[in-house]
């Protein structure tokens, strides 16, 4: 009887472990599949500033929220005083699709966000008055695809 119980416990453990491995494998592959669905590079490539705006593209960032699994994507850049930057955000065909960009200074003070009272606008124009490292953070609010691209263009302020 005792032997039977132990054997069952062992079987249960084996079964439990198999289920765990199966669950992990499903999780892994489903995550991989959702990774493949976001063409963040393509979205970034199509997010350049309008040539007539006078901004020169200097950086492009991929914003892949992994189907909602990744809540925040962060980059950094040295912004220079006397330079005006344009941060473009692209998500859906004509809207940012809930891709929110927030600029913070090196002390994590909030400088700007394209989420204005719940309305997500597609671009921020930032005339830099203080040189330093800035954090460019992407999050999502009511996003459909959690997938986007973003670019930074620059021109001299003035």
């Amino acid at each position, binding site marked *: 009887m005792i032997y039977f119980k132990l054997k069952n416990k062992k079987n249960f453990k084996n079964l439990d*472990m198999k289920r*765990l*491995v199966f669950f*992990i494998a499903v*999780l*892994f592959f489903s*995550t991989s599949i959702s990774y493949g669905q976001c063409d963040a590079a393509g979205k970034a490539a199509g997010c350049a500033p309008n*040539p007539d705006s006078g901004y*020169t*593209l*200097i*950086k*492009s*960032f991929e914003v892949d929220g992994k189907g909602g*699994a*990744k*809540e*925040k*994507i*962060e*980059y*950094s*850049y*040295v912004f*220079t*005083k*006397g*330079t005006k930057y*344009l941060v473009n955000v692209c998500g859906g065909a004509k809207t940012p699709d809930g891709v929110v960009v927030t600029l913070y*200074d*090196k*002390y*994590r*003070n909030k*400088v*700007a966000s*394209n989420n*204005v009272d719940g309305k997500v*606008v*597609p*671009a*921020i*124009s*930032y*005339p*830099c*008055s*203080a*040189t*330093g*490292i800035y*954090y460019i953070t992407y999050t999502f609010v009511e996003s459909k695809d959690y997938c986007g691209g973003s670019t930074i263009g*620059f*021109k*001299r302020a003035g």
Partner: protein
Amino acid sequence: MKSSYYTILLSLILVACGSNKKPDLAEIDNTLATEEASFPEISSANIESILSSIPHPLELAVHVQESGIEYNSAYLNSTDNYSNYNTSNKKALNLGIYGADLGYTNIYSQIQDGLDYLTVVSKLSDDLNIGQFLDFESLRRLTDNNSNLDSLLMITSQNFDRINGHFVDQNNASLSTLLLTGGWLEALHITNQVMLTQMDNEDLRERIGEQKIVLDNIVLLLTVYSEHDAQIADLLADMQRLEEAYQSVTISYKYEESTSEIVDGVLEIISNSTSEVSITDDDITKISAIVEEVRNKIIG
């Protein structure tokens, strides 16, 4: 055996689902400082974060152009030097330098020089197996119409961003670091050369001083790769000498909350924060001398 397999599998998944937050640069700096003699453990995400922070050389070149000084090809690395570069490290450093030179020629609309730099950029890219990012033949065909050249050269400059991403993806971020270091050093070299002829130019003075921020990040990146690469260790030592020359340069920063308004769908920020740079003529002379020395070693 099985339990090891599960542990590895679980670890892989934990890595794949890793933290969303990239640490602060200050945090990374502290980690490196405590690592001392051992090879610093720094993730590719952190490396990418620091790499992305290095400004594009074009930004400094625009300030140079606005100083009113005329185009001077003598500031640039001669395209004849291309054949001297026979290691991956040298090629990556000089690809960065030639890329910055290409941007400089573009800003001044120097079409023939631009094409010459485009040619060496293409050759070095092929040598480093990143030629796929520069479709040189198409670019050259399009240049038959000279009016397209400005935008073509600009596109080429933009491709450097993709090349950096590629190096990181290929676990070759050391080449990305060298590429960016070369581009930054060349932009600083050109700015210094112009500054030495216009010591009263406050805009360029401030821009040179601000490079202290970028230099700190470059030193951080080179530190990561210096342990196992003698050439990078040598370059790191040079950059640390440059860091010493920057020691007396100070940058103050004062945060004030921004205001904003939406104009034609764009959020226009009115920034109220300020920064001040303190850098003397003596600092500029010292910095310029070291930059020239390091650059000559790289391009020689």
